[in-house]
Every structure is written in C-alpha cells, then in structure tokens.
C-alpha cells in the first residue's frame, strides 16, 4: 500500500466517498421508515455505524434506537463499552436476551463442545423485530466479508418470516432505494455495504473512534481448537484433552464469546492493527467457528434471517 494510512478522512478521498454514501443511506432509512432500529453488536462495524449515524443527523440526535441481541455469552468488555457508548452519544439502547428465548421455550440451547448461541440469536432477533414493529433493521454487514454477502442489496427485503430470498431481490439502481413493502415485512439495511475491512480500520483511525479493548493485544486464557483460538470461559464446553493456556492475542471480530476466534498478536495501537490488517493473510471471518460448518454456511443462515 502506497497510500499513507494515518491521515484524517479529508485526505482519504475514498473514505470521504464511503462516508457520504453511508450517511445518505442512513437518512434514506430515517426518511422512508416508521420504526427503524440499528442492530448493535459491540463489534467495530456497528460502532462505526453509530458514529456515522451521529454525523448523519447532527445537530440532532440519532432518530432510532440501538438494538442489542444479547447471547448472554458476551465478553465483559463488550458490555462495558456498549454502556459507555450509550452514555456518550445519548442514544436509546434496547436489549433483548437469547436467555429469554431459551426460558420461554422458543429455542433450545445447543449442547456439546461445539455448541454456540450464535444461531439462536436469529430467533431472538426476529422476535424482537416483530415485538418492536421494526420495519428497517440497520446492520453493519459488508459485502467483502463473505461470498453470500457480495450479492446483498443495500436495502434488503425480508418476507414476513424474516427470510432472505437471493433469487428474488429487487434491482437496486443509482442511489434510489425502494423501501416499499407489505405490512409485517421488513428491510435489512446495510450502509457499510461497499466498505472493506481495511476501509473500516482506516476510518476508525482517521476519525479517532473509540473501540473495545478486545481488539488490542492482551494476554488471555485460550483454547486452541484445530487452527482457531477460542477464549476460555464458563460458556465454552471443552473437548477431552483441551487445556486453557495463556497467550498474547487480540480479536479481529467481536461476537459471541464461544465462537469468536482470536489471533496471536502484539498489535497494541490502532496503527499496529492497521499494519497487521494490511499484511493479513487470513480473512476476518475465518476465525469464526460458525462459518466453518460448511462452505455455504453463511448463505443458509442468511436465508433464515440472520444478521
């Protein structure tokens, strides 16, 4: 990369364009829908989304709530960061719990060493969207993350069951977003569609956006399972012979603690992370155990209404 990476956004023409596009999309959501919500996971993409929403509506506040689907298997740091962000921005936070879906029998908890609540989130999310009558759920997904996402629209229509039909997507032209729908249906909206992981990090650096400490190098007890490092916790069921060991690691994505893989890293500043991302030889989602179940895993989950 010959472009100097540590400059304010104004110096990065591509970031300025991406920012403007995302702000345009967020305003389209506010203009077209009655009850939007921003899906907040505590990960860097949703943190960038909140930052963009602040910019889009200033000097007003963010005109929709943040919705967090809490698996109950979070990293503590994520929750602390979330609560601090809400205090700082004055945004409204709504939390819905996977535990409630389990207790009410809506879902059954997976068991065994590969169990995760990641898949169960879908039910809690869809229940929350229908309870809140959310007609547009804003997500931080990017098209570069995964093959199935490369064909995703910015305004992605979901049927009454919250499902995505890849063969029946509306054509999306110019900057015209068609958010018309029948009652009970909703849209997923992805303002960061055209961003790559590198764009996100460059933007975080140039805007000085705070992110959770999990993204920086720290020493943690982890378990190595094949080539994925998983954080040791009470929620992670261990295989025979698996012994937690201390390693210097950081996380590249932040999700449910049972399926978010860590990497060994000494990157302790945003600048370090940027250089690491630039020379990275493994895509971001590859540390996530939930994508490894099959090559078409993401497409299957998306069809069912996953984020």
């Amino acid at each position, binding site marked *: *990369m*010959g*472009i100097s990476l540590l400059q304010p956004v104004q*110096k*990065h*023409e*591509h970031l*300025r*364009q*991406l*920012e*403007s596009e995302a*702000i*345009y999309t967020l*305003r*389209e959501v*506010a*203009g077209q829908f009655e009850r939007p919500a921003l899906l907040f996971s505590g990960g860097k993409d949703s943190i960038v989304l909140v930052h963009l929403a*602040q*910019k*889009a*509506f*200033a*000097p*007003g*506040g963010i005109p929709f709530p943040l919705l967090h689907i809490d698996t109950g298997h979070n990293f503590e740091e994520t929750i602390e960061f979330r609560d601090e962000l809400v205090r700082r921005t004055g945004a409204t936070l709504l939390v819905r719990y996977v535990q409630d879906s389990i207790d009410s029998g809506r879902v059954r908890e997976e068991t065994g060493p590969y169990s995760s609540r990641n898949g169960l989130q879908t039910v809690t999310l869809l229940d929350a969207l229908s309870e809140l009558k959310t007609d547009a759920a804003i997500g931080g997904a990017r*098209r*570069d993350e995964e*093959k*199935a996402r*490369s*064909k995703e629209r910015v305004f992605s229509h979901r049927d009454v069951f919250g499902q995505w039909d*890849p*063969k029946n*997507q*509306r*054509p*999306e*032209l*110019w*900057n*015209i977003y*068609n958010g*018309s*729908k*029948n009652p009970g249906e909703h849209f997923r909206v992805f303002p960061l*569609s*055209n961003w*790559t992981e*590198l*764009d996100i990090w460059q933007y975080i650096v140039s805007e000085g956006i705070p992110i959770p400490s999990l993204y920086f190098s720290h020493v943690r007890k982890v378990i190595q399972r094949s080539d994925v490092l998983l954080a040791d916790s009470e929620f992670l069921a261990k295989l025979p012979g698996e012994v937690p060991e201390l390693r210097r690691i950081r996380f590249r994505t932040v999700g449910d603690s049972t399926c978010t893989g860590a990497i060994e890293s000494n990157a302790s500043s945003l600048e370090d992370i940027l250089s690491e991302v630039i020379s*990275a*030889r*493994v*895509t971001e989602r*590859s540390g996530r155990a939930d994508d490894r179940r099959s*090559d*078409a895993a993401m*497409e299957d989950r998306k069809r069912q209404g996953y984020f």
Partner: protein
Amino acid sequence: MAAAGILRFATAGSVDDGKSSLIGRLLYDSKSILEDQLLSIEKASQQRGSGQVELALLTDGLRAEREQNITIDVAYRYFSTDKRKFIIADTPGHLQYTRNMVTGTSTADVSVILIDARKGVLSQSKRHAAISALLGIRQLVVAVNKMDLVDFSEHRFDEIAQEFSAFVAKLGIPQTEFIPISALLGDNVVEPSASMEWYSGPTLLKFLEEVEPHQKPFEELRLPIQYVIRPNQDYRGYSGRIESGALNVGDTVEVSTGSTARVQSLYVGGQAELGAIAGQGVVVELDRDIDVSRGDLLFAPTSPPLVSDRIEAIVCWMTEQPLELGRRYLLLQGPTRVSATVESIVHRVDVDSLDEQPVSSLGMNDIGRIIVHTASPLHFDPYAVSPGTGSFVMVDPFTHSTVAAGMIQEAVSKSEPEIVTGKWLWLSIPIDDARSLSSELRKFGKVVVVLPNNLDDVLIKDFLQQGIHVISVGGNPMPGSVKVVIEGQDTRPLTLEAILSLL
C-alpha cells in the same frame, strides 16, 4: 499526491468467455485474495475434479450458482492498489439478463467488456456496449480474452477491434480501449504479457488505475431533501446530499414548492461549515420558516431544473409482468415519490441492432422510450446532463417490486396534442382479418374503424377529421385511399408492422 478516490466499473460477458476468471485474476494478482479464501477454492476445485485452481470460484458466490455453474445476479467485488480503490459490479452474461447489466452499470464510471478472441464480437458484447451508452458511460474497455487460444495473434485482435469499433461509433461513446489478455495465464491483466510484444498499450489494471472518471460538467445546485432534522423547537434542518453544484451560507435557494430563502447555517458530516460541494451530505438551516419536506428539491433561483408532469424517458423493464399503459405505478426519483402512469410507448429499442420498433408493451429486459404522466410535476434535469436528478425507478404499488429503471430525456410539452387527421387505407384482406388487425392496432394507441368499401365518403371524411383511421376492405381501392396489398398466408405480424408504419 492527489486524493485517491474510488473507481467503479461494471463487467459483463457471455457465458464462458472467462469473466469470472478475469475478476479472479485481478483480485489474485493484486493480492486481494487472502490465504483462507484461496484454500477454500482449492478445496472446492478438487471436489469438482478440476485439475487446476479455478479462480472463477472466488466470484461464484451463491450455492445455486455453484451447482449450475452460472452466476445469477449482480455481485460486488472490492480490491485496491496503491492508486485507488476499485468496486466491481459483476453482472451475469446470460442473454436474458439485460436488467442486471443495467443495474450494475447504473453506478459505474467505466464498463469492461469481455470478448472471447476465438468467438469474436457476439450480440452480448454489443448489448453491454449499447446499455453502457444508454446509462451515460463515456469510457469502455474491451478486454479481448483467451488470446492464448488464438496463438496471441495480432491479426485476430485487430480484426475484433475493428469490428467492435464500428459498432461503438454508432453509440457515441468517445473513448474505447482495446486490450489483448489471457485471464487464465494472467497476460496483460496485472502483469504485461511476454507473448504479445506487438502490443504496447497498458495492462488492464494499469488502464483502470489511470483512467480519469468522466466528470459531468453540470455545476448547477441540486439538493434533494431526504429527511427533516428537528431536535428542538428552535432548529429545523433539511438534510440531503448535494447532487451537483455547491452551496454556501448566505446563498439564496429556491425550493421546488416555490418559496425562496437564504441559507442560515450548514452542517457537513456533523460539523458546522461555511460551504459544501457536490457529493457531500449536508444539513441546511434556512433563514425563514417555509414548508420544505422530504422529496423537495433545493436549487439556485437563477438556474432552475425543468418542471413538467409529462416526461419522455428511456426505460429498462425489469420484471416479468409487462408494462401496462394507464396502470398506476409509483415513480421514485431520488427521495421524491409520486404516482405515475405510462401514457404511451414511443418505441422499443433492439439493443443488438439499435433498431427502433413500434410495440404495444414492454416485457422483462426490454428497453424502450416512453411518455410518463405524473400526478404532480417533477423537477428534473435530462439524465445525460445530471443523472442524480434525471434517473428514476418505477415501483408496482401492489407487489412493491421495482419494475423499471428510467432515464429522463426531456419534458413533453403540456399543450394539447396537435390535431392529426386519420389515414385512409384500403387493404386486400377479408373483413374479419381487418377487424382483428384493428384491435391489435388499438393496443398501439391507434383508433381505427373498419368499413366495407361501399360507404358514403362523407362519413369516411368525418372519421378522418376526428383523427380516426379508416380501413376499407373489399371491392376496388377508392380514390383518396392508400392501397395496401397483403400477399400470402400467415402474414399477421408483417401486416401489423407495415400498417403501423403507415399510420
């Protein structure tokens, strides 16, 4: 160093001409493919019994596509080099997927067209060039692929370049670059070819890195309002993105509703600023309380847009249910939303031959010129001047799907259509055939009566003066009528076309 921006380009190609391999090669050679992605396609290539790693698998995302070995929709790919960030709109190459090409090209700066050196110029390549021209693309790159399979022949390359140049000349696209490549071997994609020393031009990537996206010279202020920001009683800000021109604090602006006001304050990306330019999202506070809402347009009073409730537009029809004249559709123009009907179809454009044909409807993947009537006047500019205020989509109000994409050509004058007198034809066909012909003609908006050839010509003149066409049958042609002789059996479609051209 100049700020490095984003170059968006659209690719399309026929089945098997190596488009997916080309994209795979661009991503691979520019080091945008990471190790685990590579491992995953190696695994998939082995499962398919393929001897080598198929770079095409990188881009064939959805399961249905992999099962059928086809791509079914527009996919977006990303890579960057030292020079700029690239966004590829990768559109499928099936004959019936004009609509996907239109979609992918709508946001592109440049079109990359693939031609298989063995097969030469196919209708699909022409179609992509024609669609690019319609959508205002000013720069084409023609990648002549599989040069390795024609022994890297300069003669073959020249032949193709000549044939395609002749076609592109008809489209009015000012710049076309021809590059001989082999996506499979990597020649002239990222690295220069060692096998084609006769070629001295840039590699595909070098061309894409250096091409200047065509700048529209349009500099008049156009600011469509998306959303009204009202944090408290004392502040009301109008948010939107400046499509063209510039805006400064103190400027006088006119709103499409008719009022004018001055700009009191401006926010850009959350910061108070004194001015803003095209491409920036702004929040505008005005110095007086006037009614502005979502879908209104702000512009400078000295350079207003066109205003009309009847527009002529070129549309691409995008859905299986055909266009219905007189049916109510929703028209979305940026954040503006208005009810509209299609009043008439001027013609259909055959994107392969560029011929204009009279038709009664447009079906999926058809491109045609139509007259649209809107429930309230639209403020717009011709698409060629300002895509931001000259483009629209049409939405079916019942299924909510996007049924058409349109590019406004001009306003249609509001004055009553001039009185045209009808034509009087004498046809050599049975009266029943003439009657069914007349009902076909009615679908094209032609009012026709069929009369036996023994009627008083005063009555006939009466019809003609009212603009009604008269078709006489039987007997001999009467003086004053145009004699049309139809020969042979089963000539219906021919007859219809012949008659339409006379009316």
